[in-house]
């Protein structure tokens, strides 16, 4: 048992941190206000290899592991949660589906450009009427000679505004319920595939998150992942892994807000002394840091279990459940420490507080996490 990062992991962490501080920090507030992701920044992140961390060199990846990826998620999300989710959806939902379930041809054609930094991927599962109940899919796919013809619509598809490759879930056999769902790789620009405008949101506002309309989209049948009816399994597997990334994102948001607060309380003077001199401040910060550390350890444990090919779905659910709660508690606590300035947009903690909320919702709500955890306990 060893809680220490290796030299390579430390070097990576330092690299992620420096990138986030120099490249993302100056843009975060502006991107949030404009509700638009800076594509130049996206390009820089691609160039640094942030979009292919846990994938094999064989397909243009970095040959890293899940831990290296969660370190990235934390460091990037410390500064900007929107940048974090952009990496996360691409990496742990879109790419992992193709990596884990794609054929060699599919990997060469679609996975390589995704992980070597040329293309961006997204993952279209949620529908207006199928959220936590992902089995209630209404988008349909009908085989027509060499093509499946897809019809329907998806919502909350992160990265869809600039994605090149979509993994889309659709029902090929209505009668079979979740066993009738299939997964397709669809390229942007395919006729009939249209992406709406960015959905106005409370937080992670600069991430791209749009409605995707699917109108007679003809997808070559070789673009189906695995076989008909295996889509639901693919989605669940991707989401299991994704939750570790969201856990890391939550830790990052919390730590980022706390770092801001620690700096602020030393500078801000009230009643003739820095507010850090007040015991309430010290105690609050101590409590928050303790919670963050606990969450971080849970995230690392889940990441290690995944890397060691052990059962990790309950560990992933627990780390996300706990870390997302910590992110919300801590950001709220930090805004409170800042007082009025925390509520002002001049400081980033209000943004972090808004960003934190989504971590309790996406890639499975906290309630879904509890169902998974309870399920693993056979109750």
């Amino acid at each position, binding site marked *: 048992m060893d809680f220490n990062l290796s030299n390579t992991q430390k*070097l990576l962490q330092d690299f992620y941190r420096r990138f986030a501080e120099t490249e993302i920090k100056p843009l975060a507030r502006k991107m949030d206000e404009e509700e638009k992701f800076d594509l130049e920044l996206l390009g820089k992140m691609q*160039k640094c290899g942030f979009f292919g961390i846990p994938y094999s060199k064989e397909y243009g990846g970095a040959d890293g592991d899940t831990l290296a990826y969660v370190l990235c998620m934390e460091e990037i999300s410390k500064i900007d949660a929107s940048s974090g989710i952009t990496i996360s959806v691409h990496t742990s939902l879109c790419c992992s589906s193709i990596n884990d379930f794609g054929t060699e041809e599919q990997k060469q054609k679609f996975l390589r450009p995704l992980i070597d930094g040329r293309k961006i991927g997204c993952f279209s599962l949620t529908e207006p009427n199928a959220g936590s109940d992902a089995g209630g899919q209404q988008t349909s796919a009908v085989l027509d000679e060499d093509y499946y013809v897809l019809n329907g619509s998806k919502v909350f598809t992160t990265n869809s505004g600039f994605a090149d490759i979509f993994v889309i879930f659709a029902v090929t056999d209505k009668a079979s319920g979740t066993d009738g769902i299939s997964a397709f790789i669809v390229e942007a620009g395919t006729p009939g595939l249209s992406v709406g405008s960015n959905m106005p949101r409370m937080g992670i506002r600069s991430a791209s998150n749009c409605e995707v309309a699917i109108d007679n989209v003809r997808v070559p049948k070789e673009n189906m992942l695995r076989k008909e009816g295996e889509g639901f399994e693919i989605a669940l597997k991707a989401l299991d892994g994704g939750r570790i990334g969201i856990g890391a994102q939550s830790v990052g948001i919390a730590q980022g807000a706390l770092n801001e607060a620690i700096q602020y309380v030393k500078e801000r003077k009230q009643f003739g002394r820095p507010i850090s001199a007040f015991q309430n401040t010290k105690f609050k910060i101590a409590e928050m840091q303790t919670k963050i550390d606990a969450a971080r350890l849970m995230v690392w444990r889940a990441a290690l279990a995944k890397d060691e090919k052990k059962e990790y779905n309950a560990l992933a659910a627990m780390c996300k459940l706990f870390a997302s709660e910590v992110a919300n508690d801590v950001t709220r606590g930090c805004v409170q420490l800042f007082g009025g300035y925390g509520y002002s947009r001049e400081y980033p903690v209000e943004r972090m507080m808004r960003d934190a909320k989504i971590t309790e919702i996406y890639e499975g709500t906290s309630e879904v996490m509890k169902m998974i955890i309870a399920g693993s306990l056979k109750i």
Partner: protein
Amino acid sequence: MKILVCMKQVPDTSEVTLDPVTNTLIRKGIRSIINPDDKAGIEAALALRDKIEDCTVTVVSMGPQQAEMAIKEALAMGCDEGYLVSDRKFGGSDTLATSTILAAALKKIGYDLIITGRQAIDGDTAQVGPQIAEHLGIPHVSYVEEFDVDDEEDALIVLRQFEDRYHKMRIKFPCLLTAISGYGEPKYLTVAGVYEADKKEVKHFNYEDLKDLLDDGCIGLKGSPTKVVKSYTKEQKTQGTLLKGLTSNEAVEAIMARLNEGHIL
């Protein structure tokens, strides 16, 4: 062609703060980085490598074992090999002794071009580069902002910075340059590069490896002509002076007196 880049791992002095109570330097938790001018040297060396056939870039650092991290980072940036020069006997070296030891290591490795950063942000001496060149008996140009290999590939064309001018110069190999970190876009590692570096081994030189080239009287504490007698932190800032009700001329006097006192301008 073989390019050697000398590099130092330094504490990020922009993060160094003083303990307000004890007025001593807080060194704990300060991250170590590759000295910025040295990093510029590495980047320039890598850029040059891409233009010349059969060219390699080797980083050499003298320091404690933990400096291996900095060498790893340089390898992650794309350097072909890295050497750590480290020995108890080298401890306490001033710039002259350090340059003597590094010169021996560089000689051992072999070179056509040596690049060092202009100065390290912890010591700010800017001395080791020119001193190495002198020990090796090769010409050097310091404060180099840009350089490129000339058409015949037997010399470099460099831009040497002064306060008020530049010299565009031609310097033949073998030679040494001291590089200034530019104001350009910072170059980042890649995740894959970090994993590549993980596979490369950092080579080590200790006293035994270099002793045939070293005079014991010229290294370490004993071989250092300069000694730090004492060091102290600067006086803490205290409550400033607030002047009210002055005429403009009195205000100007007060400001000028303060500028003068601080030897500013």
